């Protein structure tokens, strides 16, 4: 892992740490508050705060996870660094696309 990727992984980890604490609290909260689609959408629909929080979360998670995938592939698989990097970028883009799609579905619908 080069210095640039190392810094990105650490910066995204530092950004996500407080977000994950809040997310765990949200998980505990919703398990007591009912888990139907209507319950979820009533909290998320039209919420700029919710979209911003999870927008930052998705972006940071996609970067952090793809760097992690690249590290694991280059250390634990026979793939070359170049191919590991390409697969990791593809994974990061897929994760970001799915994550932002979910946010749009929960906030704008």
């Amino acid at each position, binding site marked *: 892992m080069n210095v640039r990727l190392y810094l990105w992984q650490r910066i995204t980890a530092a950004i996500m740490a407080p977000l994950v604490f809040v997310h765990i609290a949200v998980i505990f909260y919703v398990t007591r508050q009912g888990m*139907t*689609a209507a319950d979820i959408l009533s909290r998320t629909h039209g919420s700029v705060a919710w979209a911003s929080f999870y927008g930052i979360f998705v972006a940071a998670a996609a970067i952090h996870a793809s760097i992690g995938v690249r590290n694991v592939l280059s250390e634990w698989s026979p793939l070359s660094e170049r191919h590991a990097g390409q697969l990791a970028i593809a994974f990061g883009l897929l*994760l970001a696309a*799915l994550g932002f799609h979910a946010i749009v579905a929960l906030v704008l*619908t």
Partner: protein
Amino acid sequence: MIARARKHRGSALWIAALVHRISGLALVIFLPLHFFVLGLAFHAGARLDSFLRWSDQPLVKFAEGGLVFLLTVHLLGGLRVLLIENFDWRDGQKQIATVAAALSVIIAFIFLARVF
């Protein structure tokens, strides 16, 4: 020679690093599915509702407890790494890693107690 090179693998901190990596890998597998399911909220959430009804079974709840453990242990393990890298060294890293793992187990059990 090989036995000597592998001796560190019994160390609590080596296990902590392995747990951090495995939990990260598991979350990498889970996250696309999680986002995909949340994306089912389109069209007033009818498809999301049918998934949520499916997920309301004991085995899925146990799996969710496992995910809470993985997320917490990855968070706490990552925080320990960030603290080591950015602040002065503190002794007792093995104990801190053990407490992080124990806390993660407790939080996962509290989650399971709430959903059952």
